């Protein structure tokens, strides 16, 4: 079928041998086509307000990327929101992960449940219940603050999961060695534990940032009149999304890919320095961290 069309000159048994791989590659192409469309249509010169059909090539939208004030403002709000939500949820979530992995205490199961359940709740239920909460509390000043509260809330669980996975593959002997050498608990934490789990914390922070900056549903319910980047796009959809949005999406895409590559390299270097575990172990956090990133 379609598999043979992509490699017509190859022998039949080669096809059979590689059938799974060919299907896999086709699925990957399916995943990448929309990104290519976003890229090409950032050079489009649409005749009307709608950027849905190809008209002609132009660079003018790239030259004018930051030329739409409302769009800039929305983007800036999103970045501020994501940075704040990332810092706060990463600190809180890392503390929780440390408590769960390092300590035995009454209520551990309940705490685990509390962390898993938001990840299994549809966003629309989280968004609408938070709005109900704010509404019943009285006349709520919906805006940046309520957005921040919501974003921290849905980031925490993911941070805990990522950092916890890092802590579980952790060699406790290193901490014992530090203690034997006379380091106080705090010094041990600062000089041994923290550097070793840093890649996990960093990965968690990246995930939190990605979740926050891309969040639409929960923000849609709790934003009031504040506009974030996704909310701007949603609002612009009916009257036509400006081409500049495609350009900004591609810039964000490029920055994220670079950050991803940098983290992977940094993680590998940290692995080598600490030689905690062979790479088998380190691959899973990346997978987990990306699972929720949409």
């Amino acid at each position, binding site marked *: 079928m379609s598999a043979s069309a992509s490699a017509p000159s190859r022998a039949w048994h080669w096809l059979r041998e590689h059938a799974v791989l060919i299907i896999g590659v086709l699925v990957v192409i399916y995943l990448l086509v929309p990104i290519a*469309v976003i890229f090409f249509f950032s050079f489009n010169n649409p005749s009307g307000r709608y950027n849905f059909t190809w008209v002609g090539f132009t660079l003018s939208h790239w030259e004018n990327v930051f030329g739409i004030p409302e769009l800039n403002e929305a983007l800036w709000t999103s970045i501020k929101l994501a940075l704040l939500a990332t810092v706060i949820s990463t600190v809180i979530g890392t*503390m929780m992960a440390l408590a769960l992995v390092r300590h035995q205490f009454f209520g551990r199961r309940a705490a685990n449940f509390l962390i898993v359940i938001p990840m299994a709740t549809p966003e629309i239920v989280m968004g609408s*219940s*938070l709005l109900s909460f704010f509404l019943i509390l009285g006349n709520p000043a919906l805006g940046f603050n309520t957005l921040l509260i919501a974003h921290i*809330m849905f980031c925490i669980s993911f941070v805990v999961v990522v950092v916890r996975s890092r802590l579980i593959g952790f060699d406790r002997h290193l901490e014992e060695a530090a203690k034997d050498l006379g380091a106080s608990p705090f010094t041990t934490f600062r000089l041994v534990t923290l550097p070793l789990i840093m890649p996990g914390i960093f990965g968690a922070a990246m995930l939190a940032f990605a979740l926050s900056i891309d969040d639409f549903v929960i923000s849609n319910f709790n934003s009031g009149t504040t506009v974030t980047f996704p909310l701007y796009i949603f609002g612009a959809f009916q009257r036509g999304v400006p081409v500049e949005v495609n350009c900004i999406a591609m810039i964000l895409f490029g920055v994220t890919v670079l950050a991803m590559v940098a983290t992977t390299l940094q993680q590998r270097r940290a692995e080598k320095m600490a030689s905690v575990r062979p790479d088998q172990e380190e691959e899973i956090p990346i997978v987990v961290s*990306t*699972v929720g990133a949409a």
Partner: protein
Amino acid sequence: MAALRSRVSAYGLLLPGAFWLIVFFVVPLYFLGRLSLDTNELTYYKFNWHWQNYSDALSLYDTQFVRSFIYSGLATLICLLLAYPLAYAIAFKAGRWRHALLLAVVAPFFTTYLIRTISWVTILSAESPVVEVLEFLHIVNNGRLLATAPAVVAGLVYNYLPFMVLPIYASLERLDTRLMEAAKDLYANAATTFFKVTLPLSAPGVVAGTLLTFIPATGDYVNAEFLGGPGNQMIGNVIQSLYLKQQEYPAAAALSFVLMAIILVVVLIYIRFAGSEALMGEEGMAR
């Protein structure tokens, strides 16, 4: 003494996060339930156990409810059929391309969800080559794919596919390949090996993937909003519009609560059916 200190510091570490999740996740769920039992007194809402909100909302929007579950069920099934071969290829066939393929799977996450969905409007619009080919093959007849059910399902499949691929890949990647070799040594053919060894061992990944796809897809309203027509509205669209446009809060809260309850029941039945290993899917990934 040391144990006591450990317990105290554990609660100290746990406190801020637990506080945040209880106050801004658990308590709001209670308020959602409460609001769903309010009556609308024109200028304000009054709590008086108004269960009729539920029957009214359900009888008014039952088609959207059923439609949501059909769309998301279909999307989950298609995702599984597409994701399994891809995850299998990455885990066992890709060789040194493994990292590149994984990067490609997560690449969609690097662009905003809404823009990705909008780019499907371009792909499915009447002038696009995709639609022309489908028309040539007589799969599509009137040149219209947008504002149809297949368009919405296709959007859901696209947006949630990585959530299916990654857990399946994670469980395949940890699979002991010697078991597959053992099956071969015992004269099992490729199909038997797959169905008796590989597939059962990757079940936690499949269960985690289907849940990660099904739960958000059921509540989704972006795909139906952008790619569907008035006849393709899902329950998410109704809840969103009742909350944010019509401000019919009690009815919207009732729908939201029912949505959560149904999803919970479906998930529990599914987990029971798929075995207790299911829950370990998510937990297991973290370990």
